[in-house]
């Protein structure tokens, strides 16, 4: 089998060397002005939504865990912007950015976190478990790496049915050390499944830095052990994400081959909002440096200002729109009702929910 392997992007290979301008790569050059603005709008939207949900969490409106995507926005926005009709996507619990990127509304997402009936899962899933199968978005999964075999399964189904799509399966840099993921890498390569695994390497799994969790810090290199193609790129520039991911996705669709993509990114906030200690396992300077030089919102904004797509006024306007939308979603969530108690035992079994004729036999639920 002839393969071309071990490509890293210029940016990842020669840190410090002159950055390639990914905005001029063909996949990005072909974007219309409106499409570029949409990318900006999405990245800003995710940022504003996350900021608003943080406030809601701090006000005690949101229960459980809240894993914010702030700092990583360009990854989900960039990759989802490349998805075609038959492409599917699945991710872990840091799932709000992907959800908004596929087109879920701020209202249904915020309401889900508030535990309301109007939430995307009627309040049954919460922050970590958003789903929108109608938008090819399969969650939202709380067990580290547990979603990776499911992602391979989506891709398996596409190939089985003769569809041309691919599946995008996201995971974190900590998740790579789960057995299920390594098993899945092998399976995907062995069976030539059109799945692209995207490691969102933000450098930390909770409070554990990459150095302290993975013996080989170049996570993408693991693909070699499975005869799988891989690439590494930066995640702060949406145009770089698009340029690199596009190749992986085309290859998956056209050749039915899996791909391991490692995207170097950064999260600004703690692991979850409950992680108040995140300045203990990393320095304030490290965070500030990333924000100053690589902020995904700022990077895309600079690109679009410099090529004349965007003006400061328009940027400001978009920003305000997204703030307002996020604010409105919090109001919507706040004013929405919680589900009635009768909802506790719906959505457990498909057959029960769809038994309109009352034909099912036997007891399904066991309460006194």
């Amino acid at each position, binding site marked *: 089998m002839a393969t071309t392997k071990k490509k890293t992007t210029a940016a990842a290979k020669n840190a410090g060397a002159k950055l390639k301008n990914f905005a001029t790569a063909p996949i990005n050059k072909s974007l219309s002005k409106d499409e570029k603005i949409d990318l900006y709008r999405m990245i800003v939207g995710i940022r504003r939504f996350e900021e608003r949900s943080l406030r809601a969490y701090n006000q005690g409106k949101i229960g459980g865990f809240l894993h914010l995507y702030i700092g990583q926005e360009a990854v989900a926005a960039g990759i989802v912007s490349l998805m075609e009709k038959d492409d*599917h996507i*699945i991710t872990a619990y840091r799932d709000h950015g992907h959800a908004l990127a596929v087109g879920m509304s701020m209202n249904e997402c915020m309401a889900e976190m508030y535990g309301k009936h109007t*939430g*995307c*899962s*009627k*309040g*049954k*899933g919460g922050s970590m*478990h958003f*789903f*929108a*199968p*109608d938008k090819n978005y*399969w*969650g*939202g*999964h*709380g*067990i580290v790496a*547990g*979603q*990776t*075999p*499911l*992602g*391979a*399964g*989506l*891709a*398996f*189904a*596409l190939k*089985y*049915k003769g569809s041309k799509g691919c*599946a995008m399966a996201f995971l974190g840099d900590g998740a790579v050390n789960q*057995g*299920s993921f390594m*098993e*899945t890498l*092998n*399976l995907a390569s*062995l069976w030539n499944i059109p799945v692209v695994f995207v490691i969102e390497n933000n450098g930390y799994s909770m409070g554990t830095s990459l150095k302290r969790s993975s013996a080989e810090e170049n996570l993408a290199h693991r693909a070699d052990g499975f005869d799988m193609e891989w690439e590494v790129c930066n995640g702060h520039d949406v145009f770089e994400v698009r340029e690199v991911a596009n190749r992986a996705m085309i290859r998956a669709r056209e050749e039915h081959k899996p791909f391991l993509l490692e995207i170097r990114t950064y999260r600004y906030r703690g692991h979850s909002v409950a992680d108040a200690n995140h300045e203990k396992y990393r320095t304030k300077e490290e965070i500030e440096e990333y924000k100053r030089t690589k902020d995904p919102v700022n990077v895309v904004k600079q690109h679009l200002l410099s090529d004349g797509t965007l003006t400061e006024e328009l940027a400001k306007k978009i920003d305000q729109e997204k703030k307002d939308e996020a604010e409105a979603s919090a109001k919507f969530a706040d004013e929405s009702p919680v589900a009635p108690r009768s909802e506790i035992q*719906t*959505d*457990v*079994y*498909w*057959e029960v*929910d*769809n038994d309109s004729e009352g034909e*099912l*036999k*036997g*007891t*399904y*639920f*066991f309460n*006194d």
Partner: protein
Amino acid sequence: MPLITYREAIKQALDEEIQRDENVCIMGEEVAQYNGAYKVTEGLWAKYGDKRLIDTPISEAAFSGLAIGASMLGIRPVVEMMFMSFSYVAIDQLFNNGSFCRYMSGGLMNVPIVVRGPANGGTSVGATHSHTPENMVANHPGLKAVCPSNAYDAKGLMKAAIRDNDPVFVMENTLLYGEKWEVPDEEYIVELGVANILKEGTDLTIVSHGRCAMLSLQAAKTLEETHGISVEVVDLRSIRPLDEETILSSVRKTHRALLVEENKPFCGVDAQISHIIQLKAFDDLDAPIRRVSAIDAPNFYSKELEDWQLPNEERIIEGALKAIA
């Protein structure tokens, strides 16, 4: 009616369902080219090829999860566990993703998979290969569990499981694979949630499932012949959903109940059944409900000891006599 083995009955079910629905495929270790570790899938790969019979590496977590993901897009995988014991390395996939994805999405998806394989002790393979996890499966709302005790049920329940739109675990039994029963040539389905009265009786109800139901039937015959006790034997077939009505109406008739299963007693299936009987038929009971389960320890390797550890005719008769006393 032709007499066929339990193994053959399951194979017929798989064969017919593969033919009926192009989305049905079988995956697992050694299921295709090797013809199955227990030869349940023998000949199917030769007949249907690589697309429908898929040999997997020894990666239960990955292929279980893959099957679940594929089912979200409409594929209907039948996942063979070489032993149901091996599903334990895939518990996150099966018990989190399999059972809860539908719920956590507020009903936006369903997971039509079947997980099947032998779940029994009694074969001197030691504790690691002798699990009977139907109680654990039934403890996860969203999952279904069936335990066929004979070839007829095995075929009919398997076909129902494959057509079901929820995840169903089919617990088979290696000690039954070679046993024969009458199975009609015509197509049939055994619905989930319907128990089977293997034998009618008036003095005592035995509730059981899987191979233990067959042992209970044997014990019931002996009890009738040698002790003059008329025993009714209820074979649950399906653990979740559960046919409560058949259990309760039998107990209301006989006023005594003995529950027999291969599970360990603590939080076994029969713990729940006992609760249901006392809750809903308390006034009908003339004596405490009794249980015969596996003797409460990991499975013994040595045949003589394991044969005593698991319910057998002698222990069932002993339990019945206590229930009658």
